């Protein structure tokens, strides 16, 4: 597919975006604390950056990880340049309307708490947690994407998990 895009095949680009847009959008959405508009903008930047550098792409490993690396760097650059984001952590754009009103209310409350828990983490820990638990990557892959080494990635994951655990204990009243 990359070779086809390098050769100027626009259909291949169409297929590539349709295949990977969701993964990158979800990463950006969680990384940007649920800011839907900025997540969409950054997702667009990721694919356009890929196009700009497509002639230099030398594929080693999974393509998804390559895109996630660009996404992680683009998000980090965004945080360096942009003013702090004040996202309303208590609102959601989820349109899942299955289940009863009570179930939806509980689900909504849980989601708000998870988002708040993630929001308490420093960026480098949040990044690792997102890649590990939402994209199911191996530590080796996470280390590569975050441009760190394996022990550092492990340590960030452990520290992040501990913080989330403490948050969860407080949320559930210490029954974990």
């Amino acid at each position, binding site marked *: 597919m990359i070779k086809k*895009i390098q050769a*100027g095949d*626009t259909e291949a*680009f*169409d297929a590539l*975006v*349709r295949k990977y*847009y*969701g993964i990158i*959008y*979800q990463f950006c*959405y*969680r990384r940007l604390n649920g800011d*839907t508009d900025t997540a*969409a903008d950054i*997702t*667009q930047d990721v*694919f*356009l950056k890929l*196009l*700009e550098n497509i*002639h230099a792409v030398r594929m080693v490993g999974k393509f998804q990880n390559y895109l996630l690396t660009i996404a992680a760097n683009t998000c980090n650059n965004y945080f360096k340049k942009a003013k702090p984001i004040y996202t309303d952590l208590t609102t*959601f*754009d*989820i*349109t*899942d309307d299955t289940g009863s009103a009570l179930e939806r209310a509980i*689900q909504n409350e*849980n*989601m708000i708490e*998870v*988002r708040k828990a*993630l929001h308490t983490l420093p960026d480098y820990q949040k990044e690792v*947690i997102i890649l590990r*638990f*939402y994209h199911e990557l191996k530590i080796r892959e996470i280390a590569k994407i975050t441009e760190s080494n394996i022990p550092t990635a492990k340590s960030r994951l452990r520290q992040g*998990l501990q913080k*989330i*655990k403490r948050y*969860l204990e407080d949320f559930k009243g210490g029954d*974990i």
Partner: protein
Amino acid sequence: MKKNNEIQEWLQLYDTPAIPKGKMNELISAGQRYMDSAEFNKNSLQTILLSQLQYLPLFFWIVQVILVAIAVVLVSLSGYWKVPLHYPLTVLMVMIPLIVLVGVREVSKSNLYDMWEIEQSSRCQLVKITACRMLIVGLVDLFLVTGTLTVTSFYYQQSFIEVILYGMVPFNISCTCYLFTIMRNEKGQISYHLFVCMICITVIFSIILKQEVLFETSMIWGWSIFYFFSLVLLAKTVWDYLEHEKKIGELAWNLQ
């Protein structure tokens, strides 16, 4: 382990909204537009150089070679008749700006013949085409002028470095003046202004080079400084010229 699993399950509750289809389609359109643009279709430097080499007309090469041949013959005759050095240098002061003029016209023919719009919309950017032409023509002219100066230094038993400096300073100044003239002029008058510019350079340098004091050994440092200064000036003008080419291309797209 059990606790970690529980945390993982809890984290999985954080769902994301549906993919914004509109934004995704916008991205696909933007990407496809970019892929159709000249910026995406980057050819390697070698490809552009070879293609530009192919488009340089035979007439250009013939004129260049004839001018150099005339210069070499005149310099050789001056050497044979042992006339003072400033005579062959005056010949060179006429021939060098003329050779450069032919070269510069070839480099900027997109502007001279008002073809920049077509070249800008081709799959290669105008600025790159111009840069490649500049590289080819510049190197050829440098080679030819250096050859002529070598002949001069041979006949007059002058230091090679000195003769090179005497020739290269007018070469750099000529290039700078022509490019500057092209950037500042209306299209219809460029040819006329370039010709006037060539006459001025020729006359000014012919007068300057009649001053014998300039050819004393101690003046070599002065020439070196002047050469360096002219080189910096030329580099700046080439940069401005390429920026100018880039800007007219961008302007064309913005007006569409």
